[in-house]
């Protein structure tokens, strides 16, 4: 039995497996996020089951208790128990994409109780402050990250934000996008949320919290459909757009957008 510990956004997860291939995948994939110390969460990953597909799409639904969720996709099946802080996962093959997808879902559920969200966004740290660049595929998340050579990358694809006492912190994640680089395992105070789109010039426009909320929610990674957990995610997002200034950011592919952000 191998036990590895991954720490993301202040939540440390012990990954336990008998499968040496799975252990290798976890060790390689989460290299910058391996940690030591007592785990908050525990995931047992079972050996591959022989390639039987579980479900065509991602399905996350309550299963056998208010805090227990079944999580299924074509390449994995598992359960997440939020109150016990345990999960189990069976894979069709020891694939890093499968493990990574399950971890994203696990963190999206686990973070709710700590008032955190997984957001489709690039995040970067500049001068000690974090900036979040939200948007769907093709909006420019990876481009913004690539153009920001003097910033620290937290993620170019999926960022984690946690809110407490009216201020927000943004955390580095190993959930990488087209840049194929994991973020750094660090956190910084979040000082701006930018809803990205390509344009002919750099332009920043302030958004009110209602519009910002409407633009943030579709970018929040969350699969469960139960009303109480959806409402909890809504409240975290609503608090976030009240606590952090939000903007529409139109940009063209050069680093000049930072100047516009600084002057906004």
């Amino acid at each position, binding site marked *: 039995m191998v036990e590895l510990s991954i720490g993301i956004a202040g939540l440390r997860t012990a990954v336990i497996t008998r499968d040496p291939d799975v252990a290798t995948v976890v060790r390689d994939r989460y290299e910058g996020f391996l940690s030591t110390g007592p785990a908050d969460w525990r995931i047992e990953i079972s050996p591959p089951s022989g390639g039987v597909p579980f479900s065509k799409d991602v399905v996350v639904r309550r299963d056998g208790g208010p805090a227990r969720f079944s999580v299924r996709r074509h390449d994995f099946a598992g359960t997440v128990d939020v109150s016990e802080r345990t999960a189990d996962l069976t894979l069709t093959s020891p694939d890093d994409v499968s493990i990574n997808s399950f971890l994203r879902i696990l963190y999206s559920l686990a973070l709710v109780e700590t008032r955190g969200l997984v957001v489709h966004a690039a995040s970067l740290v500049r001068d000690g402050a974090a900036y979040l660049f939200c948007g769907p595929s093709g909006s420019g998340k990876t481009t913004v990250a690539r153009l920001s050579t003097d910033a620290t990358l937290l993620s170019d694809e999926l960022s984690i934000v946690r809110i407490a006492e009216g201020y927000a912190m943004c955390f580095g994640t190993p959930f990488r996008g087209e840049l194929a680089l994991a973020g750094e395992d660090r956190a910084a105070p979040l000082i701006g949320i930018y809803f990205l789109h390509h344009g002919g010039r750099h332009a920043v426009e302030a958004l*009110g*919290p*209602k519009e910002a*909320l*409407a633009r943030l*929610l579709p970018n929040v990674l969350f699969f469960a*459909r*139960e*009303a109480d957990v*959806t*409402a909890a995610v*809504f*409240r975290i997002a*609503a608090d976030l757009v009240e606590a952090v200034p939000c903007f529409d950011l139109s940009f063209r592919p050069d680093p000049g957008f930072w100047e516009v952000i600084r002057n906004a």
Partner: protein
Amino acid sequence: MPEAYLTQSPRTAWRVYDGEAAVLCPDDSTLNSLNAVGTLIWESADGKTAVSAIVARICEEFDVDPERAERDTMAFIAKLRERGLLTVSETLQQAP
């Protein structure tokens, strides 16, 4: 016409910003953005406030004639009901 009372679905989540509500329907994660009049109706959907009282308040606060206020309110209620955001009852509702 019998009196009617509106009750927000307990499955919704909502927040008011600058007098305008954003209401989330958890079934499909749609965010419904309400204007000031819609927000007044939504906030009055407590199971105890009669629709006639809501219409009277709209007339008073937004300077609308009663006929139009009633027509628009009923249309708005029908929309929210269709989306599963509230229920309409002919009797007073108890607090959950």
